[in-house]
Each structure stands twice: as C-alpha cells, then as structure tokens.
C-alpha cells in the first residue's frame, strides 16, 4: 500500500511537469491549429536560460525557494520572448500556407533551437548547481522531498493563474474566440496577431518554467532534453483532448500516473515505449481525447 501511494505521488509530480509543457502545446494548437514541434525545445531553452542565470549570479542568489522563483521568472521571460519571436519569424509568414509547409517549418525550428543551444553551450550535459535542500516528508507512508512539494505547488499555481487568465480576462476571451473562428474575430476587430503572440508567450513561458524545474530537480540538462518531453506533452494533450486546457492537465496527470506504474511493473527502460504506444492506442480508440468534443468536420 505504501508503495502504491508512493507511485501515485511520483506520478502526480511527473504529471505536473508534463502539464506545464502540455498546456502550451494545447493552447497553440487550439488557437492556430499548429503542432509546434519546437515546443519541447522551448522547455529545453528554459532550462538553459535558468542555467545561465545560475552560473552568472550564483553567489548573489543563494539557494532558497526565492532564488528558484527568481530564476524561473527570468527563464520564463526569456522563453516567452523566444516563443513570440519564433511565431513572428517562422510561423506567421506561413499562416494560410499548406499544412505540410508549416509542419516542416516547425521541425526546422526545433532543429535550429536544439543545435543553436548545442553551438552556444557545447553538446555535453550541464550540471545545475542548485540542490534544493533535501528534506523529506512522510505522507501516508510515502516519502516526498520538499523540492518535489515546492515544485508541484509552483506548477499548480501557474496552472491556476493560466486558467484564470483564459477564463476571466479580455485576452483570454479573445483567445477562446479565435480558436472558434479566426476569420470572424478578424472581422470583429480583434487584433488576432497580438492575441496569437500572447498565446505563444504564455505557452512558451510555462514550458520555460518547467525546464527550470526539471534542471533543478534532475540536476542535469542537455540540448536534446526537450525532444522526448515534447512528445510526452503532446501525448498528454491528446489524452485530455487537444485544444482543451483543463484536458491537457488531466491528460498530463493520467500520463504521469501511467508512466509511474509502468516503470514500477514493467521497467523504466520501457517507459517511453509504453507512453508512445499509449498515444497510438488513444488516437485509435478516442482521438478526441477524454474531454474533447466530437466535431463534425465541415467541408
């Protein structure tokens, strides 16, 4: 039983990482129907942005939770800005182009980010010099570190903030409107370009935050770390129903739990095979996801 609860907690923890990345994936897809393959790489860039801050201002920041938050804010601003830039330079010129062109551009962007970082930082993994204090807590017989708790809490706060933003603000309303009918929004005087930019900023910033958290937690980052997480985030978004934000969080949690149990019972070397196999299975059985609605495809 203790073991079971331990698995649930670690699933929830991993799921909260996935959720932060999946949210951006799902937001961008929801609003302009683009699979942003580079999204996972924005997470990676976030980790490196945090690493840069850490190595420049290591002494001044100390090692506490406040330092972590400061680093995250810087990294979020950096990845958010990069996401906006990416949209402006690579995706906007192709709005209305054939879908294949846009997908290929996204692959190119992913490649450029990965190897841009490899050129800038070198191809070898970097070590995060920030061990968050290693205290542990016993909950229902399961062992949790304070670091895990703190990060899950930060992730939840970010998710609630995003949910509030999308549901309660003008920008959020415009985002939802554009995902319904971009042409009508244009005609109604919504500044579609600006809203799309903001969507990219928010989604990328969340990915950046997740990147810093991953760096701190795992202690090691490398330029290809975004590849698998991008796939996982997409899987989570599909499970929840792509384009649906609460669905993305739900999907991420489901995926985190599934992985946690599969690692325990099948073996960690099969974790990714299990996750991607599950993606294929889900697309076969219920492509609209758990919370997605069935849409009649119109000619």
């Amino acid at each position, binding site marked *: 039983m203790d073991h079971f609860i331990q698995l649930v907690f670690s699933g929830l923890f991993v799921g909260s990482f996935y959720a932060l990345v999946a949210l951006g994936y799902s937001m961008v897809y929801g609003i302009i*129907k683009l*699979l942003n*393959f580079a999204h996972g790489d924005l997470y990676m860039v976030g980790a490196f942005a945090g690493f840069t801050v850490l190595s420049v201002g290591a002494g001044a920041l100390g090692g506490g939770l406040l330092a972590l938050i400061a680093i995250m804010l810087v990294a979020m601003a950096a990845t958010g800005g990069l996401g906006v830039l990416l949209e402006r*330079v*690579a995706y906007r*010129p*192709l*709005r*209305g*182009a*054939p*879908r*294949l*062109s*846009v*997908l*290929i*551009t996204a*692959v*190119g*962007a*992913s*490649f*450029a*980010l*990965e*190897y*841009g970082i*490899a*050129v800038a930082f070198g*191809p070898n993994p970097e070590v995060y010099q920030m061990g968050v204090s290693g205290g542990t807590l016993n909950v229902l017989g399961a062992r949790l570190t304070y670091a895990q708790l703190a990060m899950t809490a930060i992730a939840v706060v970010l998710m609630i903030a995003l949910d509030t933003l999308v549901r309660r603000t003008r920008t959020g309303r415009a985002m939802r409107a554009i995902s319904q009918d*971009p*042409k009508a929004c*244009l005609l109604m005087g919504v500044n*579609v370009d600006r809203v799309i930019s903001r969507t990219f900023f928010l989604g990328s910033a969340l990915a950046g935050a997740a990147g810093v958290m991953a760096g701190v937690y795992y202690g090691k980052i490398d330029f290809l770390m975004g*590849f*698998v997480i991008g*796939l996982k985030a*997409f*899987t989570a978004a*599909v499970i929840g129903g792509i384009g649906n934000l609460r669905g993305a969080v739900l999907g991420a949690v489901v995926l985190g739990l599934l992985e946690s149990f599969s690692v325990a019972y099948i073996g960690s*070397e*099969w974790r*990714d*095979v299990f996750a*991607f*196999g599950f*993606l*294929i299975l889900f*697309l*076969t059985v219920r*492509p609209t996801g758990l919370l997605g609605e069935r849409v009649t495809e119109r*000619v």
Partner: protein
Amino acid sequence: MNDESTLRAGEEASAYAGAVEERGRVNVALAGRGVGTPKPNRRPSAGRTLPGVLASRWLGPGVALAALALPYLNSSTYVIRIAVDALIFVMLAVGLNIVVGYCGLLDLGYAAFFAIGAYTSGLLSTRYGWPLIATIPVVVAAAVAGGLLIGGPTLRLRSDYLAIVTLGFGEIIRITANNLDFTGGPDGLYGIPGFGDFGLRSDIALYWVTAVVVCLAVLFAGRLGRGRLGRAWRFVREDEDAAEAMGIHTYRVKFAAYIAGAVFGGLAGVLFAAHQTAISPPSFNFLWSALILMAVVLGGMGSTPGVVAGALAISLLPELLRGAENWRYLIFGLLLIVAMIFRPQGLLPARAGEARRRGRRVRGGAS
C-alpha cells in the same frame, strides 16, 4: 460516352478573357478556406531552373551510368564507402518522397522502417544463417506490417497527428531494439554478411549491387509517381475532399503511399546492414529521420531529380565539413524554415507542367 456529342464552345473565349482575369483574382482570393489565401504563388513554374537539363529524358540514364561507372574512375575504399552511404541515403530520400512529396503526409519517423529492414535482415542472417538475399521477402513483409500498424489508426486522422505519431513510432522502434536481448541490446548486431563478392573486391561488389538497386528504386519511384496511383497521391495532397468527390478512396491511397515508403525504407535498411556489417540502435535515431526529410524538402518535394540531388548533397556535405556538426545541423534547421517561407518547392522543384509531346500525338490536330 459517345464522341459525337463532343463539340467546342470556346469561340468567344478570348473576347472576355480580360474581364475574367480581373474577376478571377478576386474570386480565387475569396475561395480560401481558413484564414489566409491558399498558396499565394507557391511553386512558380520550373522554367527558371535548368529546365532543359531537368526535363531531358537522358538525365536519368546519364546519372545512373555515372553511378555505375564510379569504380572505374576511382576505386579507393574511402570513395567507395562514402558512395555507398550516399546511394543508400538517396534510396531513403526517394522512399520518403513518396510519402511526403507525392502524398503530402509528414513522416517524422522514417528511420523506423530503415531500422526494421536492417534489423530483420541482420537477425535472420546472423542468428539463423540466412543468406542476405533470402531475407528480402521477410523484410518487405515486416515493413508492410509496420506501415499497417502505424498507418492504420493514424491515416484516418488529421495529417498533423500522423507526423507526431510517426515521431513516436521512430522512438518506439529504436528503444525496443535497444532494450531487447534478442536484437543485441545497445551493442546491436554484428557480422552481417554481404550479398557475395562475385569474384570482385568485396566493397566494389557491394557498391554495384547497391548502385543497381538504388537506380531501379529511383526509376520505379518516379514511374509510380506518374501513374494512376501517383496521380491519386497528388490529388490527395492537393485537396482530399475533391479527390473523394471523384471516387478516390483517400484513406486507401494514403495507406498505399505510406506502405510504399515503408518498403523503400526497409529495403534501404537491408543495403545498410550489408554495408555496415554491424548495426546498433543509435544508427536509427530521430536525426536520421530529420536528415532524410531535409534532403526531400530542400531538394524539392515531389521532384525526383531534386530529391536525388538533395540526398547526395546532404550525405556528402559532412565529408567536406568535418567536425562542425552542430553548426551544420543548426544551419539545416534554419534552412528548413527559410525554404518553407521563401522557396517551398525546393531547389530543383517538380516540373509543374507536363510534356506536350504525348498530348499532341493523341490529340491530333484538334488544337
């Protein structure tokens, strides 16, 4: 339909041509689905780029002859080795071109089929002592099975789902090969035999086998693209709904493209296994899939000369620019973006028109 009913009604056609031109532009702009206008001036006609050479019927045989003659020009082991690498890469690019270029489906895990081919023939030849040539039918069957497994569920969905599922599939195959003892785990398989040396230096024998197979593959892929099925692939690429309205079963057509691509990839894998004699999982990672895609995209989607040239360039370039790997990939990535924005048809685009020769012969003096 009886021929008598055929009559011409275009006499006054030119009289209002100007007016039509004017309206045409407005209406074509309005016809767009989605936000923007559809393909504004993408793919200008191939006229500007070496039209004579590319349209020549002697181009293909000429290049094939040059490929077959290479060992007479330079038979150093180094040249033969990189030439075999390049040829295998050409075959992969031509196979992926069927999926991406002809049919417009993005496959990001193409290396998976390459791996399936290499591992199937490698396992049968090293573990069970089959001669390599005998493994080919099994390789084809395995590639088809892989194509069915992935294509079946995803080809019904939006095309971008296929892209990411294939990405996942590529990882599944690689990780599986890495995890199983049967496939040699991270060490992979070694001691894979060749096709025999026919009394020649063994690398040159393999070179010729590869050259013949790859030349045939290029020829067949190009011909397949021009036939009935190839046309259907293009119809699906251009407009799935309109293709359906013409009675074309788009799901089956996409499936055919995907399976054809899988078979080409699988067969390239056999050549790769014979060439390397040892294979291991890292040979089949995402980088490979991405590089093949780049060869197709930069060379010119749907264009056989373009894809062949793109594949040769991408596989031979590293030999010239050794060491600067990360820079190279960074530039490739940027090039993909730039190409999609400014020249989506690639460097040597597919011929937009068609040869008039055939039309005139059949039509007689009608025009």
